[in-house]
């Protein structure tokens, strides 16, 4: 296979790095080459986070060039819009229907973009934009922290990874006491996205 490039973004505390670790581990278990790198800057919580993930037969750079990502998974809407620069023309954008306003910025006059604005910004690169109800799902599962794995489930419809590889990887990367809710979240995300024609 050629290289599949995935950008995952959101804010600190959402579990983006864990989610990309799960994909990377699953890809490795399937015998693929994989590289990933995360940018977290100075923020512990609440800052922008972006993870670059590449899988294929041979992967050189862990960083994805601007305009070279096949898939963008935005776990937060503003961050999804910000990261669209990495998406290639006609790539797939999965956007979590979840918005977190920045607390304060010098340019506080700039409004948080509404869904139409987000769609318009991402629309400069692709028409394949899918909003995913990660927040709703996490609330119904009773665990906000399962939101990332629900989204991973939705994303899994696009990835050439077997359910065995996913299962082993999820088991190895997630804490045991939260494993069940996360496995449930993964399957639910996969199924609901599939029903919505995503993938």
């Amino acid at each position, binding site marked *: 296979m050629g290289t599949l490039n995935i950008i995952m973004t959101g804010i600190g505390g959402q579990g983006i790095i864990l989610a990309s670790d799960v994909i990377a581990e699953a890809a490795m278990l399937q015998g693929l080459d*994989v590289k990933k790198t995360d940018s977290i*800057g100075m923020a512990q919580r609440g800052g922008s986070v972006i993870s670059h993930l590449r899988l294929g037969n041979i992967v*050189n750079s862990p960083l994805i*060039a601007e305009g070279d990502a096949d898939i963008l998974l935005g776990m937060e809407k503003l961050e999804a819009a910000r990261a669209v620069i990495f998406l290639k023309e006609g790539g797939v954008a999965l956007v979590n229907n979840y918005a977190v306003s*920045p607390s304060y*910025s010098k340019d506080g006059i700039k409004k948080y973009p509404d869904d139409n604005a987000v769609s318009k910004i991402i629309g400069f690169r692709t028409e394949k934009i899918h909003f995913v109800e990660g927040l709703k799902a996490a609330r119904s599962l009773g665990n906000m922290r399962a939101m990332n794995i629900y989204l991973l489930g939705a994303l899994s419809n696009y990835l050439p990874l077997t359910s065995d590889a996913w299962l082993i990887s999820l088991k190895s990367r997630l804490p045991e006491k939260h494993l069940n809710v996360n496995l449930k979240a993964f399957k639910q995300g996969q199924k609901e996205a599939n029903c919505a024609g995503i993938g």
Partner: protein
Amino acid sequence: MEKRKNPDQVTRLLSGNEAMALGAYHAGVKVATAYPGTPSTEILENIARFQNVYAEWSTNEKVALEVAMGASYTGARALTGMKHVGLNVAADPLMSASITGVKGGFVIVSADDPGMHSSQNEQDSRHYARLAKIPCLEPYDSQSAYNFMIKAFEISEMFDTPVLFRSTTRISHSKSVVLIYSDALNGSTQPGFIRQPEKYVMLPVFARARHPVIEKRIDKIKEYALDCSFNEVIPGNTKTGVISSSIAFQYAREVFLDASFLRLGMTYPLSENLIRKFASGVEKLIVIEELDPFLEEMIRSMGVEVTGKAFIPVTGELAPGVVARLARDHGLEVRYEKEQGELHEVELPARPPSMCPGCPHRGIFFVLARLSKRRKMLTANEKNTTNEPGVIITGDIGCYTLGAYPPLSAMDTCACMGAGIGQALGMEKAGLEDSLIAVIGDSTFMHSGMTSLADAIYNQSKITIIILDNMTTGMTGHQGHPGTGVSASGRQATQVKIEDVVRSMGVNRVEVLDAFDMENLRRAIKSAIDCEELSVLIVRGDCAPVRPRSHASRVVLAESCTRCHNCLKLACSAIHDDDGRVIINSDFCAGDNCGVCEQVCPSGAINIKGRTV
């Protein structure tokens, strides 16, 4: 690298830092030391999990290097890890470790931060290898980080030299597949120190004799570099030859698809014969390297025609797209020929880094920001008018440096670890009439605040020093330090109490304050800057992410809120402005663990959800 034959080889997904740690363990490292610093921290964190290895968080990088140097003198294999600016702190013993040489293999990891993701500069640490006349190894992925680390200990012993192991953020923090050899060496050699003053006592008389020895040593390593396993030629076309190292190699490999490559794993010293041989086989020679033209200048000084920094910047972090665009603009044949579609310029609200909700530093910075003397000073600065003496706040490195950002804007200098105390003292001695406040973290105080505090006491200073004590090394992810009483492996250790240190040094005016009690913070600050005596205020509160989560959240009572937006000036990421209406995000609010916003609200409009008013 040659692969050891073992039927039990396994593959694992590892970050560069994890791979370095495992490589060191498999090389039989016995003593490992570090001071935490992004992007190097996880090296020691991972080594600390292995059995039969002594791992410590040292008070600073100088001490870390010295501890590892002592271990090496006994024949034990030793590693010390730090970020690039930490190597500046450790530069003094580094130079001495070079001249004495080693007994057990001695590896010094410096993790550079091109792009300054989390640093105050982006120095290229490879220069230290040339300065200290020691070999420099640069891995280019996690596999080579693992392989090179094992080999680094071998060459350290082979040539009687410390080895500089240079990583970068993208090497340390990228993950890739690593083939592990499971035949780890056992680091159980019995330590022994044999007195050799002519090697270990660097009095001038002995040091003079050692200098020619290290000059000969680097010549021998140069010969070794000709066909050592660190460097590799990857044949391609004869038109373009690319010399590269570290992560830049990966970018170059994607951009110059069919070129010939010389990938250097040992970037100091270079073998002139190796470079000449490679250069003679290609029409055009290019060096692709991040930061300084370290390789390029050495190659050019051999009389070999080469280009690189003519189009690759010396500033910032490289990326494959950046290398492709600049190379193409320079007339070179590259991949990514097609221009990507233009993005319409849409202005999005920024999400600047900020202190976590519930951070114990927020309250004190708010108090400092709101001091009337300081506000008057800043207004006068803006209008360019003269003013009464104000309040200057010097600072340094830590999460609390975020206090420099608006709306707090309550830090005026940040140079390096511990610098704020010395700077405030210098401003005082220069005759500045403003009140001077130096802020410093607890881990930073242990790292490099104690010596400058002694200086301030000794030299009759009257400044105010605020030690922001969150009882951990917060920014790098909660490592222990002497003030915490917790060791690198998580065991209980002897606690060095900050207030005891400060008092015993001779400070009379010492107060320990609750970081979440705004009224008391205000009182203490005012009285400290008004008094004509050196004051040390220790502002103590748990680091937010390590506290058990509070399930309560504060809310804004819309009917009481006057929209004064005082709470927004706290720069808490749980509080935001929705068209003038203030909202507290209950998913982020630290609830019972904080309460600073409730205390700064003048109209009593903030309260815990569900609590009766």
